[in-house]
Each structure stands twice: as C-alpha cells, then as structure tokens.
C-alpha cells in the first residue's frame, strides 16, 4: 500500500515535470531556431547571430511593438482600476454573490473571434466606436477583465475584513485605511490583475483582427509577416524569443517581489 502510494507520488511528480517541459520546451526550441542558419526548416543547425543583427537593423517591428506595449499598459491599468472596487465589495455582499460572479465570468465562454466580431459589428454600428487603438483597448479589456477580477477576488476573499476595522478602530480615517492597510493587503491581487491585463492584451490576436482597423499591434504584425511569407519571417523567431525571455524575466521578478511582500 505504502509502496504503491510512493510510486503514485513519483508518477505525479514526473507528470508535473513533463507538463512543465511541455511549456518551456517550445520556448527553448524557438530560441534555438532563432540562432540557426535556416529557422524555417524547423531544425536547428549552422548557428549564427545574423538574424539578430538584421532584426536590430530592421525598423518595421518597432512601431507595432511600442503600440502593443502602450495598449497593454492601458489595459493593465484599466483592469486594476475596474477590478479593485467590485472585488472589495464582493465579500461584503449579502446576497447575489454567485449571480454577480457568474455575470462577470460568463463572457469567458464567448470565443475570441466572436467577441472581436461583436465589438466590430455592435460597438462600431451602435455606439459609433471608431476601429483603431481605442477599440483595441476596449476589446482587450473585455477579454482580460474576468481574469483580472478572479485574481483580485482570490485575494479579497482571503483578506481578513477585521484588519480594516482594526485600523478604523485605531483612529485611521477611511482614506488612510485604504492606503495603509487595504492596498498592501490587496497588492498580490493588484499585481496579478495588472499582469493578466498586460499579458493578455500584449499577446492578443483573434479580437485584434477585427477591432484593429488600420492599427497594427505586434501580434498582428507577426501574423501578417508569417502569413505573407515575407523576408521578415526569419526575424519573427528572434523577436518572439526576445519577447518570451523578457516576459519570463518580468514574471520572475514579480513573483520574487510578491513573495517578499507576503512572506
């Protein structure tokens, strides 16, 4: 019995490593291809840094990159601002909690393409929203918001409401309670909500196809280059490798920061 239990534990551990490998192996493979002579062959070999050199020489990807960063930043801020109030209110709601959560989370079931189409047809026609940077922000926000809210809810549900009461009781006016006690307690959720908003927007493609109008984001640019079989396509390997490494590093830094805060 005990031996079987230990074998099962070992099996699960192996499966865990296997799943982790599934996540990281493609990134490593991408990095290998980006320094290969012929990335499009799919096999690494004949290692060279020439693609990186031509990437730094080429200019086409810079404007979409900056645009994507900007849009993602705005979406991240919107997600945090819009997720904090309802997440703070949720544990204090006396009734309707489940229906409220369902109402917010159900849009996750709408496929990305459909949502993009909805924004494109409905918002444009009914509300006169011009397709461009702000319609991208809107569609990315609609996409990322449920994730941001979940991340906030996890934290607000865990936070002891008596902490804020204790601060009030000790003489802190409402604004100080918020700044001194509640926001530090909510910080993991805020970082999570911002991270979801940023990353989901930065990598978003299906909705952007409809809502981008003339504006090109980095995923739209990569997609266009790849499907056009242009000469730029080899640079996409380098670009995506750099982006993956940068976002991994950013996530790692955030995890370390959060650990220090909450430990």
């Amino acid at each position, binding site marked *: 019995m005990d031996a079987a239990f230990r074998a099962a534990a070992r099996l699960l551990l192996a499966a865990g490593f296997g799943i982790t490998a599934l996540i990281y192996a493609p990134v490593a493979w991408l990095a290998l291809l980006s320094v290969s002579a012929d990335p499009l062959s799919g096999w690494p070999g004949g290692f060279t840094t020439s693609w990186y050199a031509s990437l730094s020489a080429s200019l086409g990807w810079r404007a979409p990159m900056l645009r994507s960063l900007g849009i993602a930043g705005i979406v991240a801020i919107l997600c945090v601002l819009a997720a904090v109030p309802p997440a703070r209110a949720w544990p204090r709601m006396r009734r309707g909690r489940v229906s409220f959560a369902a109402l917010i989370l159900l849009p996750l079931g709408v496929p990305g393409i459909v949502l993009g189409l909805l924004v494109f047809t409905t918002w444009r026609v009914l509300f006169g929203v011009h397709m461009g940077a702000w319609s991208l922000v809107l569609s990315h926000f609609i996409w990322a918001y449920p994730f941001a809210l979940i991340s906030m809810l996890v934290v607000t549900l865990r936070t002891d409401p*008596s902490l804020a*009461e204790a*601060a*009030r*009781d*000790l*003489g*802190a006016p*409402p604004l100080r309670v918020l700044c001194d006690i509640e926001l530090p*307690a909510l910080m993991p959720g805020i970082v999570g909500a911002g991270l979801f908003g940023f990353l989901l927007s930065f990598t978003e493609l299906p909705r952007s196809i409809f809502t981008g109008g003339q504006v090109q984001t980095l995923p739209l640019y990569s997609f266009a280059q790849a499907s056009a079989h242009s000469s730029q396509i080899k640079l996409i390997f380098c670009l995506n490798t750099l982006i993956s490494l940068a976002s991994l590093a950013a996530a790692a830094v955030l995890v370390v920061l959060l650990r220090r805060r909450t430990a």
Partner: protein
Amino acid sequence: MTSAARLRDAALLHAKNICLAHGTVAALDGVSLDVRAGELLTILGPSGSGKTSLLRVLAGLETPQTADALTIDGADMRAVPAHLRPTATVFQHYALFPHLTAGANVEYGLRVRGVPRAARRAQAERALALLRLADKYDRRIDQLSGGERQRVAFARALVTRPLLLLLDEPMGALDERLRATLEADIRALQQSQGMTIVQVTHSRDEALSMSDRIVVMHAGRVVQTGAPEDIFERPSTRFVAAFMGGGEPHRWPHRADRPAWRAHRLRRADLRRPVDRRTAAAPWPARLPRRARGSCPAWRGRLRRQSAGRRRAHAELPRHHAPD
C-alpha cells in the same frame, strides 16, 4: 436621586435602548448599559446572544437602527464614526496587520494621529515592555506565538490611551495556562492604569474570576446585571441559572417527535420563569419582556415576519459551555 440616576452620573459609558438588526435578524433588542469609570465589566452570554454586536456598536463599527443614548465620558457618540471614538478594541483574532512588524503595529494608532516618529517609537517600546515583549519590536507578526500576538494586540490598543478598552473574547484562542497569566495581566493593567474595560466572553469561569460586574445577555437582551457573586448565587431567571450553573445542553427536538416536542415546549416556558421571586432580586422583569419588541419601533414589522426564526433563537439557549 435614585440609584440608577447616580450610576448614570458616574458612568463613563451610558447606552440606552440600543437596537441593531442585521438584515432581518435582530442582534440587539433594546439593550441598555452603564459602565463606571475604572471598572472591568464583562458581557457574558452564549454564542448568538448579541454580545459581540454590542461591543461593535460601542466601538462604532456597527450603526444601530435606534439608540436613545450612547455617551462616552458625557459626549454623544451616536454620530461619531469609529475612527474618532475614544475607544480601542482588541479583536477576537487580534487583527494584527500582517505586513507590519510588531512595533509598527503598536505604533499605528499613533502614526495616524501624527505623532512624530521618535516619540511614537518610544511609546510603542514602553507599551511592549509593559506586556513583556520588549525584545519583539522588530518581529514580523507570523514569527510570534499566539500569546505574543495577543499581547501585541493589547499593546496596540493601549498605546492610544483610550478612555474605554473593548476586548472581544480576548482569551478565545489561548490555552489554559496562557489564559491565567493574561487574566492577571489584564487585571494588573486595569488597576495600575485605571483603565475602564468592557470585555465579551462566553466563558462563565473567565467572567466570574476577573470581573467587577457582569452583564448576562441572551437573545439580544440584557437579562441580568450584577456583581459576579450576585449573578452566581441569585440568578434572576432560569436561563441565567442554567447558564451559570452548568447542566445538560438543550437540544431542539424534531417536530414529529411529539413527546420530545411537548417536553421541549414545557422546558422552554420553564426557562423563562423566575427562579424564586423572593431570592431573585433582579431589577429586570422576571419573564423575558415580550413588550421589548415594541422598544425598537424601527423594525417592528420586519421582525414580526421573522418571528419563527426568533423563536428558534430563544430556544437554543442553554448552550453555555465554550466549544473549545
């Protein structure tokens, strides 16, 4: 001058006819309370009797639907928000700020009052030393034991020099030995600093051993007030007698179980009867006052709809021993 009026004059806290409902559930049903300066008053009652609600009303964390009076040191508190009241609370689970050190927790009340850094550090260290925690200033909260956390919470409440210290089940989470030392601590602090303390507990032993006076609550009402000996030896109702004296915990029988149901009804009626009209020198009506429902006009209609639920709350009574 009647004795009641004299008490009110000497009272640090005077509360009259406080009614509080959470949704449709009545938590406080016309509660009046007087606390003398310098005394340790214990509010005793089973869970759900409204004692914590009362404490929260005093601290300003809950707003009662009606209150004929609520004064602390002569000042009307009814419109004063929690952060401006001269009270400090030690919460049941301490509610220490996890992102601050023990010292910063103690200092917080001074920080929001704008006390300069050096002065508040000195005061916090003095308060910690008073509670035998002098070397714990820089500790994080999760590095402290339960008893130490409890004493940090005390120091945090004491350092603002409140007129009234409110303790919500201060011993709730502590083991027997720690309880004894903390009881002594609280008593010593109260006597050396001349503090006025209102504490809430469901433990009869705690209430008897350390209080100047005891207020017994039940189903949102005060059923008896008096010195520990009086409450113990001359309980005014069967409920108080059962609560103070032990006995079998009462169970609510199934409706279909006819004999048990009938016995239960009889017993419930019995619980409300006075023990003995000659020995029970209670200032309160011996029978739980039905008319008290009328003292909270604001929620009269609302509670009538809830009467079944309320009756159940009454019947659950003699669940006296702390579920430790």
